[in-house]
């Protein structure tokens, strides 16, 4: 075991390999607040990559309804249980040590790697989902948390902010292209690798022998076994698009399928530069801004220790205690900042799903104030700023204003439509 630095945990941790970093890292931000669970992302991935024989149970992208849903069933509850068994009551954070380098403070508990070592195992703790676990991927869709102690009934004051008593939300999941992947550390054949150019984690399809140690030890269960190929497969981060080899964007890096097709405009994906193991400070890279500067987007289950690179803007109506378990101690600040967005955040949020090209940097042109009001006792000002996103060649890729352009369609087409019936 080597010692590596995990900024999400605010400390060093044990990992099988010494610390190595790619030059750039694949990063995505998913805004849970806006997802409508249309599953367009899910099917965009499926129809692109996993539509073939032997991949019937595979959903590299899936959207599950929390708190009950999960694909594979209860994957996260099982992991949390394993961690709690290894370290009963000890999975806590010390948020008092928060700093720019350790935005969530310090994790005092055990990662999957440390819990494995503590139990005398060769590798991380984990489990192999059963055949049934992989079926019915959208089980518990839209199933809300009920009224505790009262079966078959929702809470009478279920839907009052700041925390709903009856609640559910959608969790969008792809491979996290982790900095310290559980799958990479699990593979006895070193058949899984993290690409130096973008940090995308791939299973070498020529070397894999289907041992499924990665399936067992990816805590997010995003490595999957394909029986008729006798090997494991996983989300490939749509690497041909990220490389810019898709003809549509003429050589400039392009967002992944699941991101580019998102109907709810909840997804933004890109690349951040890494130097000496750290995210290079880039306040106008939208991913850097959302994750490291504004800190409205948080990693999913950072306590697992893999340093996942998909970040979530937590749902603002969900009980904080539950959210802290999922996203760590940054939840309260993230929701506060998201519900009272700064002028810059209001503009950056417009970039979600505005172009297929990966946006490497943005500029903001200030516009006039269009609203000055009070929400929940706080003053809210909205400015019609314009944000301009730049692609991999530093060319303008998109220009979009905070106030959505408003078009009034007159009645002439409606009449034509009626006549044609």
């Amino acid at each position, binding site marked *: 075991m080597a010692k590596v630095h995990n900024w999400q945990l605010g400390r060093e941790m044990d990992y099988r390999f010494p610390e190595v970093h790619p030059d750039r890292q694949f990063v995505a931000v998913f805004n849970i607040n806006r997802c409508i669970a249309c599953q367009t992302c899910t099917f965009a991935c499926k129809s692109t990559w996993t539509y073939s024989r032997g991949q019937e149970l595979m959903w590299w992208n899936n959207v599950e309804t929390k708190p009950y849903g999960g694909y594979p069933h209860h994957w996260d509850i099982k992991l949390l249980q394993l961690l709690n068994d290894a370290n009963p009551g000890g999975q806590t954070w010390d948020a008092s040590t928060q700093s720019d380098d350790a935005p969530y403070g310090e994790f005092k508990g055990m990662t999957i790697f440390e819990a494995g070592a503590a139990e005398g195992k060769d590798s991380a703790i984990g489990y192999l989902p059963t*055949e049934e676990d992989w079926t019915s991927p959208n089980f518990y869709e839209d199933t809300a948390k009920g009224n505790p102690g009262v079966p078959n009934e929702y809470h009478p004051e279920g839907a009052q902010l700041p925390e709903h008593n009856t609640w559910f939300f959608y969790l969008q999941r792809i491979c996290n292209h982790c900095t310290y992947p559980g799958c990479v550390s699990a593979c006895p054949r070193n058949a899984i690798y993290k690409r130096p150019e973008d940090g995308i984690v791939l299973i070498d399809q020529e070397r894999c022998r289907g041992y499924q140690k990665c399936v067992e030890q990816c805590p997010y269960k995003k490595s999957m076994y394909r*029986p008729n190929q006798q090997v494991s497969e996983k989300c490939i981060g749509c690497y041909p698009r990220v490389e810019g080899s898709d003809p549509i964007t003429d050589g400039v890096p392009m967002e992944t399928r699941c991101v580019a097709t998102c109907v709810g405009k909840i997804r933004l994906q890109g690349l951040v530069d890494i130097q000496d193991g750290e995210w290079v400070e880039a306040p106008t890279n939208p991913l850097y801004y959302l994750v490291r500067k504004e800190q409205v987007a948080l990693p999913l289950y950072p306590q697992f220790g893999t340093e996942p690179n998909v970040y979530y803007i937590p749902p603002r109506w969900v009980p904080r205690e539950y959210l802290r378990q999922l996203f760590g101690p940054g939840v309260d600040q993230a929701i506060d900042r998201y519900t009272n967005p700064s002028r810059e955040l209001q503009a950056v949020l417009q970039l979600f799903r505005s172009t297929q090209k990966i946006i490497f940097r943005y500029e903001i042109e200030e516009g006039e104030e269009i609203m000055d009001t009070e929400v929940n006792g706080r003053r809210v000002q909205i400015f019609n700023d314009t944000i301009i996103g730049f692609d991999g060649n530093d060319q303008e890729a998109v220009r979009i204003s905070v106030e959505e352009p408003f078009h009034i369609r007159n009645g002439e087409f409606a009449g034509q439509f009626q006549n044609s019936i």
Partner: protein
Amino acid sequence: METLSSSKRLTVIIMAFVFVGAAALTLFDLRLASSQTVTLVAKRSENAIPLDDPSADVWDKGAPIQVPLSGQNTVPPRGGGEGTVTARALHYDGKLYIRMEWSDATKDDSTSMQNEFTDAAAVQFPVEHGESVPAFCMGNPDAPVNIWQWKAAWQTGTDASVLDVQEAYPNIAVDFYPFEDEPEFYPAAASGNIVVRADRTSAADNLLAGSFGTLTAAEDQMVAGMGAWDDGKWRVVFSRDLQVGAEYAQFAEGDSTNVAFAVWNGANAERDGMKSVSQFLTLEVSPEIATGGGGLSGGTIGLFVVVGLVVVAGLATVGSYLLYTRRQTA
């Protein structure tokens, strides 16, 4: 005549047991692999050796050795456990045949659903036979090993292959597979990964390794392998030409090399390093005609009966000698 002293008596008893043991080992040509000198001898068979029947009578002519196995505990993932493989070897018409036989309560021969692991077996030889053998697990970078691995799952489907989806799930309903004929959607096969080769004709692979984690499919797939599970027992036969290209293990009449064995129990989710392994033993390819080395054909029961008889005979010898010496002193 003077009284036989107790030390002399002890000597006689020990000698008697040595005699009994030697008689049993000679009778059955049974060698214990835990001893350094143990040798698996592949004698020349007078009859063809059928690959499709690992229980064929011809194997009665091959002298068995009992090879102790233990869990692989050197590198992760560790696993396996204590066990025994009965190994036999023969050669016929320029080919070497090795049969492994071991107990396994369940037949696990599918990896076509989630969470399934296959029973498997392997034999391992140094690529170049030298003074010292490679590390018994997976070889060394400067002393690679040639591994023949058989997997039950590789002979389960039609044409010696794994089960495809519609065989594993007979009631599956799928509208259509739009990319059925596009190889890039079968990336393991398209990249030439040997575990999924479509033209698989043998349930055994020819592999090379130079240390842990380096197992690689050899360029030439020329090892035949077939297993049969019956009544709690796997019998698996491997076969290959004695002489092949220099990058693989070589065999020749009158020559010796080393061999080690490994067994995986699918029911125990064993795969990769999670296996039961033996030490290296000597493998000798002999020009002698295989005659059965005493014939274990009667099976284990016969073995016990005859061993029992020999032991009784031995004890009777000791007993009558003691009786005789007593009488002398009386």
